[in-house]
């Protein structure tokens, strides 16, 4: 059970940052995962009054506030067009509409959860994360940032531009966590692949071996899928074994590549 000593609606990022420096404090995102924990929190800091719940389309990017709910991302026409529907595909399996109206982008990314569909997709969008204290960094850098860092995720920017994106996941049952999540993007002939729910956090692979240099065919897609599956580290949990995930990985990567060709 989650116990909270005091609840504070921060009036500024500085106030939220200062309050969050104590180990007994916590920043509230959607608090869906947080409330599952058996934990006592001295101060819960809410960012809901800081205007971070907006998706702003700028000339060269989409700027997404940390408090934007996943449902808003899922139905945003600009993000759907940018990702050819991959954004909705990545999010629509997460529990239900009511859950996604509560879960936030910031909460989903800051935890760098192993099961995260969100982290997996954003890894292939060349996204950048803005932390209040540590500044702007690529989401890949952020994914490896020390977990005990006490900072605020302010917003995420997703650059515009020609990019084909595909997202696929395997689930044992609808609305459950993924057994494996896979996102692939192509920009300027360069392919980026993220594999999440290994069950560890998503990791990124690029076509270092040039397996796709002559384009994507069933054979080259299979070769790249097998290469990624051999390179990725998988684990076992109640949803699937490492060996099962390895086999699924090769298939999902190949399917993503083949679907990209249809975009």
């Amino acid at each position: 059970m989650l116990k909270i000593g005091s609840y504070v609606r921060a009036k500024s990022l500085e106030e939220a940052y200062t309050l969050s420096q104590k180990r007994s404090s916590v920043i509230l995102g959607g608090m869906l995962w947080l409330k599952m924990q058996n934990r006592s929190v001295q101060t819960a800091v809410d960012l809901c009054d800081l205007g971070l719940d907006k998706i702003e389309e700028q000339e060269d990017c989409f700027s997404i506030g940390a408090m934007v709910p996943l449902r808003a991302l899922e139905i945003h026409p600009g993000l759907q067009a940018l990702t050819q529907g991959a954004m909705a595909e990545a999010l629509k399996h997460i529990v239900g509409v009511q859950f996604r109206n509560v879960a936030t982008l910031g909460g989903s990314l800051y935890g760098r959860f192993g099961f995260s569909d969100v982290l997996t997709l954003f890894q292939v969008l060349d996204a950048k994360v803005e932390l209040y204290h540590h500044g702007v960094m690529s989401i890949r850098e952020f994914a490896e940032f020390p977990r005990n860092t006490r900072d605020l995720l302010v917003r995420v920017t997703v650059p515009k531009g020609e990019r084909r994106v595909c997202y696929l996941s395997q689930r044992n049952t609808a609305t459950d966590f993924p057994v494996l999540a896979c996102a692939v993007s192509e920009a300027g002939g360069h392919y980026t692949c993220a594999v999440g729910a290994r069950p560890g956090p998503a990791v990124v692979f690029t076509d270092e071996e040039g397996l796709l240099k002559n384009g994507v065919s069933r054979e080259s897609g299979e070769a790249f899928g097998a290469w990624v599956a051999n390179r990725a580290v998988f684990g076992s949990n109640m949803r699937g074994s490492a060996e099962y995930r390895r086999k699924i990985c090769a298939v999902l990567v190949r399917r993503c590549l083949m679907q990209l060709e249809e975009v």
Partner: protein
Amino acid sequence: MEIQLTLNGKKLTCAIESDTLLIDLVRQQGCFSVKRGCETSNCGLCTVLLDGTPVLSCSVLAARAAGHQVQTLEGLQEEAEEFVGFIADQGAEQCGFCNPGYVINTIALLRENPDPTDDQIRAYLAGNLCRCSGYEGQLRGIRNYLNWRKEERHGNV
């Protein structure tokens, strides 16, 4: 701490703890249609509308609802009345425990998308679990209601 919010159109001032959940607050106010089910944010039984948006009240702090409008099924009976009979006609409610969550989320769906396809209905209601039925009865009920509504509207043109 003290918060002010509007519950089913009525302005309230409530004394709450920092960790009071919205589900507990609305039940304290007599809104017993809102039920505690899974405790893992999965079942949709505790769905309420927060500023018109369906959310899981078991996962929202009451403090977060301060200054906002909260609606439970108690405040939406007129809107619900039109179609719940169609669900009952299918025997879809069976034990009835999941029904308030189902009904309130269907209201949210139909406000957002007045003419959904079957797939859109299934997708929107995926976060409402029912352990009696196979969901087909609810789907048939909503479909029958939508067909009836279309006929009514065309008949009135």
